[in-house]
């Protein structure tokens, strides 16, 4: 084995990069993922809005990519629910509704729905989430939209447990590491939930909790459980990142974390090396193929020399030739920020690039 040599190196650890790494590994390739941390997962939770699926011409490609992504998410212990034609209204952090086609299971559950009594349960000491505010807002919007969920607000207190300011990160970290705390939280939520068929809580149920653990928690709670988006850091987003990361590790993807890729060494129209800015001396990884999924960072890496892409989504020089025959770009042509509504598109782009990279298997000289 060679620890620095790979079939495919994926640059970027967002939804696009994680999908690309998973897809490349699925085909049995030796994959490395270079990422500088959770990145945009701290801002958003991976929800895909309905409007993303409205683009004509992409439907089949998108469907395949999303199907793959869902398989991976399932295997990683953070399944997604919904579908392009099954959009539902989920609450935003401002108490509005947005139409979401796909979301992680427990965020998907956060639909107050048209039947069943719902309570929004906040934590008294959590100053960045106000259950009364959310309940009032959702009720107003719901009545305007024509349904009446009559959401109520309830509150639990965690102050004896934490000796200082309570944040979602602290609750989530405790949830993961302390079984005793988990049962105390469960107990408190059960009391608040009594009389309701569904409770919605701010996303705080673990930074690395699996679907199974959450399902157990929900089962013990005795009613339906949903998580609501909060101000960053997004616990649901970070959980998604950690689960995917753990899964990729499990299937043999080698992770190089914490330092950015700064150079792509291209010679004779082949990118053979990826250079990571590790301290002291750079880390050089050799590869057969490169998938760029680095969002805004990509244009820096390509040195703004990119003048479009070919049908295999390889970046082209201004002369119209490929920059490197083995360099694939998981580009999205929208200007949406990484944390914005482009999640489905990012997944599709990552998948597409990985498929294109995998299809060129065996086409290069060794080394």
């Amino acid at each position, binding site marked *: *084995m060679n620890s620095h040599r790979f079939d495919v190196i994926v640059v970027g650890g967002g939804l696009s990069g994680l999908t690309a790494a998973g897809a490349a590994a699925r085909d049995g390739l030796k994959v490395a993922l270079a990422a500088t941390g*959770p990145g945009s997962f701290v801002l958003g939770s991976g929800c895909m809005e309905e409007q993303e699926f409205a683009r004509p011409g992409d439907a089949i490609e998108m469907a395949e990519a999303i199907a793959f992504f869902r398989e991976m998410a399932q295997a990683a212990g953070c399944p997604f629910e919904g579908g392009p034609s099954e959009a539902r209204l989920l609450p935003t952090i401002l108490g509005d509704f947005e139409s979401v086609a796909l979301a992680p299971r427990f965020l998907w559950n956060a639909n107050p729905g048209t039947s069943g009594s719902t309570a929004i349960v906040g934590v008294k000491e959590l100053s960045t989430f106000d259950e009364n505010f959310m309940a009032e807002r959702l009720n107003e919007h719901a009545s305007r939209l024509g349904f009446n969920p009559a959401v109520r607000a309830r509150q639990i207190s965690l102050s004896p447990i934490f000796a200082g*300011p309570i944040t979602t990160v602290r609750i989530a*970290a405790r949830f993961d590491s302390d079984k005793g705390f988990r049962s105390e939280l469960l107990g408190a939520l059960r009391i608040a939930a009594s009389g309701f068929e569904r409770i919605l809580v701010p996303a705080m149920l673990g930074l690395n909790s699996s679907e199974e653990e959450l399902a157990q928690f929900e089962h013990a709670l005795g009613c339906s459980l949903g998580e609501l988006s909060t101000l960053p850091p997004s616990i649901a987003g970070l959980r998604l990142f950690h689960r995917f990361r753990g899964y990729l590790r499990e299937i043999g993807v080698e992770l190089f974390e914490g330092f950015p890729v700064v150079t792509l060494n291209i010679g004779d129209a082949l990118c053979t090396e990826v250079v990571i800015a*590790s301290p*002291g001396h750079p880390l050089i990884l050799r590869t057969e193929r490169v998938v760029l999924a680095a969002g805004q960072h990509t244009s820096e890496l390509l040195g703004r020399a990119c003048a479009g892409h070919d049908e295999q989504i390889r970046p082209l020089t201004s002369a119209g030739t490929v920059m490197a025959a083995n360099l694939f770009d998981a580009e999205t042509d929208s200007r949406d920020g990484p944390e914005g509504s482009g999640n489905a598109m990012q997944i599709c782009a990552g998948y597409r690039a990985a498929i294109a990279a995998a299809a060129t298997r065996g086409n290069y000289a060794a080394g």
Partner: protein
Amino acid sequence: MRQDDFAIDNCLKCSVCNAACPVYAAQAQYPGPKHLGPELERLRCEGIPADTAWLEYCLGCHRCDLACPHQVGVSEMIARAKAKHRKPLIRGLRDWWFARPGLLGQLTTILPSLSNLALSLAPARFLMSKLMRITPERRFPVYTRPNLRTPPIAASRNERPRVLFFPGCFIRYNKPELGRKIIDLLERNGFIAEVAETECCGVPAIANGDADMARTQARRNIKKMADQLHAGMRIVTACSSCGHMLKTGFGGSLEADEELAGVAKKIGSQTFDLAELLMAQSDAGALNTDFRSSNLRLAYHAPCHQKSQGIGRPWFHLLAQIPGVTVEDLDAGCCGMSGTYGFKQEKYGVSMAIGQQLFDRIGAVQPQLIATECATCQMQIEHGTEFKAIHPAEILLQAYDGRSL
């Protein structure tokens, strides 16, 4: 404008550093790296006395830096603020000693047996607790005569590549035997190792807020290494903290001195972690793979300062090459010890709370042995679980010899 000034500008307040910080999760009053770093840094520029005792609670693990998408350099800002932070007398005095494990090592190893006895006696530990706030829950590591020296080199092996082995304080004063094993390991893989006559790398000094000491140690180390370093000679570290320090130009402690900073940078470019070096051999097909098979279930814990070197996980891959050995990458966060941190009474609770996740994971995996290259990670694991933890180099060496562990 100074480079540091630009670094504050990079922060977008995303809070991913807070989510990655082990202390933030475990200690509810800890303001977090985002606040102690870039936010207070802006105020320090304004001249507001942005000093707080919470600075002392930073582990120096660099996980904030690894998570930051924008290269803000959070841990460096906090380290600089720590250096200006004023401590009350007792903590100040205690941390003065903790900043100098080299000095401590020199003194205790004058009469090691006596020192070891003294440090382990209940009354002594009681006094240390009361007078110096050193937690009575832990034992000091055992000190030994510092007799690690460069072994004589046989003429027949003179053309082999040489490396300069930077042993660090733990090997020098607590476990020179490990140092000898590492030299042996290197030799079996074609390297002649010279032991660097250096002192403490400076990580404890920076961690305890003594920037002057770190600078002094850096200068002295550069000078001493210059005498021994030949052109192109690689420096090898077996302790990940020493490695991190050397690779980052002595943690930026020399930034005021341009010339020395340049030399430090060069040293960094020549520094390799022991596993990094051996893995490069392995990748080139030149690793000595004359291992005896053994049925060993290992678990590997990557120290934070190993992750902060950004070299992947070479020990994991090396251990996996021993036939019959299975290795589980624990990947369960920071152990919580962070060198001298876990010895401090007021921080003992936080230290153990941070390590709990790792302890639980070990309990779930139930390995026969744990491999980790950081001495204080080893201490913490043995303190928090009933499992034994040793340096992966020892495991490799014993695999060569077929000895059971």
